[in-house]
């Protein structure tokens, strides 16, 4: 059984207090009528299952480590900011800087994301964050990306799925993108290897089952792979030479 929480017109401190209390005795929570409350599930650790109905405020799931959150609505700016583990599924679109500095876990967005998605995502050892976007992304996708995986499915075949300045300053990780690819210097576009295809197949299957969208028009071979040309693009800048 899940606990039901009504978020209607509650201040974020009050709402987050109620969520914390509910999860002290229960693993599942459904939060209804959420509208703009910030920091939901901030720093939350453990295998909780949370459903949010409405539009949660900025920094949803910031520093979170473990929970699975489903949002039936759009999310605002800064969702999954510095998220460490767990999963977030957005049944709608996301605002700007989703997955900012994300370190682990996975985020699936059914529709579109705003500017600077995945800015400065990073990975270390086993920790490898993943951001999967069903639709399109705003400018600066994967800006300063240092690790992890971004998959841009572009399921509606937009001509320019990632806007301008994709992968600016990228120096690690990988972006898989379906459709017209335009990237700056410091990165290169490659065709897929066998391992890439396995990774893509896995995440596309998860996407399909989460959102019940069959992606009939999407073929694995249509994806391009964007990686950085070196892992220390600024070494000359900071080496004093």
């Amino acid at each position, binding site marked *: 059984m899940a606990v039901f929480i009504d978020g209607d017109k509650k201040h974020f401190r009050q709402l987050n207090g109620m969520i914390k209390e509910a999860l002290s005795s229960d693993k599942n929570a459904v939060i209804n009528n959420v509208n703009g409350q910030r920091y939901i599930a901030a720093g939350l650790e453990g295998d909780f299952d949370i459903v949010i109905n409405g539009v949660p405020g900025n920094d949803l799931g910031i520093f979170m480590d473990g929970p699975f959150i489903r949002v039936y609505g759009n999310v605002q700016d800064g969702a999954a900011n510095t998220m460490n583990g767990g999963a977030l599924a957005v049944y709608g*679109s996301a605002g700007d800087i989703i997955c900012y500095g994300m370190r682990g876990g996975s985020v699936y967005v059914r529709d579109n994301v705003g500017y600077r998605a995945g800015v400065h995502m990073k990975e270390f050892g086993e920790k490898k964050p993943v951001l999967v976007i069903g639709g399109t992304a705003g400018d600066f996708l994967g800006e300063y990306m240092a690790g992890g995986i971004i998959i841009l499915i572009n399921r509606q075949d937009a001509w320019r799925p990632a806007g301008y300045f994709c992968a600016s300053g990228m120096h690690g990780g990988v972006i898989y993108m379906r459709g017209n690819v335009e990237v700056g210097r410091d990165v290169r576009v490659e065709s897929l290897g066998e391992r890439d295809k396995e990774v893509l197949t896995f995440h596309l299957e998860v996407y399909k089952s989460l959102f019940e969208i069959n992606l009939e028009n999407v073929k694995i071979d249509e994806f391009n792979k964007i990686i950085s040309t070196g892992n220390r693009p600024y070494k000359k800048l900071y080496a004093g030479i």
Partner: protein
Amino acid sequence: MNEGKVRISSGCAIAGIIDRKREMFSGTDIIESIAVMHERSNGLGGGFAAYGIYPGYEDCYALHIFFDDKGARQKTEDFLNCNLKVGMTEAMPLRKVKTVKKPPQIWRYFVRAKEQKLMEAGMSEDEFMVQAVMKINKTIKGAYVFSSGKNMGVFKAVAYPEDAGEFYRLDEYKGYLWTAHGRFPTNTPGWWGGAHPFNLLDWSVVHNGEISSYDANRRFIEMYEYECTLQTDTEVITYIFDFLIRKNNLSIEKAAAVVAPPLWEQIAEKDQKNREKLRRLRGTYGSLLLNGPFSIILSASNGMMALNDRIKLRSLVAAEEGSRLYVASEEAAIRRVAREKLERIWAPRGGEPVIALLEGADDIFLKQDEAN
């Protein structure tokens, strides 16, 4: 200490609602909308602009003035009586709100310029009013005109916006266009005059962000007899739009392309006609490019425009529902007040203006001289 002696950098929330069929609605919606974003402000500035609120006085300029003391009010009224025909005069109707502390005296005057003075000065009534307002603000200590448009008004305070709305009894007014601002100044003492919206004639601007090109913009605009007395970003933004649209007759779209032009590599991708147009605008008005992170709402009698900086360093969401168009820093602020189902909700791209004009209006600013 007043603005101008210190630098301001701010977080802030903005919101705007227009009914394009001119259906009137009370200030309750905009207050509820901006209140959702409480965390974006810190109680050091909140304000509203409302259009259509003085239907009995459409022909008069409504002056809203802060006074530090009786002496400042006396001096100002002497100045008004000498230069203007002063109609209805009253203390601003206010409500006591615990969190709104130490308000100045707030009065409003419905005025027209004296014909003889206009002839002597040889200028339009709009221009005459601009000069009169600047003169009061510059020369009468303790007096500050913070609203001077026709059939519109700005209401602002050192307070959270929802408290400022309560204080000014905005639930009792009806308008077709409302904008709001919640301020989070990080580097300045709060001052009533320094809250947003900033207003000149029918223009009002609310603004989130900071303009790092301020001095370049100011130097250019001061060549055209605008005096930047507050030294705030918002003041210079207002003058830039007044200059481009009222004085130089640019369309609102072109004015947006001046302050937030596409980057050169984006211009290069356009078809020849647009490429030439954008090059010309940048060549002529290059000094009016606003650099730095911002989202603004510019409004005037005929509508509003919301605009982001070209690389979108501040958030902005827009939505449509019948004849209403909403904009806000956060989606939740729109959803709180949307009446039924939003038909369309979207995040505008950086530098892409969201323009909402009244039905039948050609451009955003109604020139008073043409209207008369």
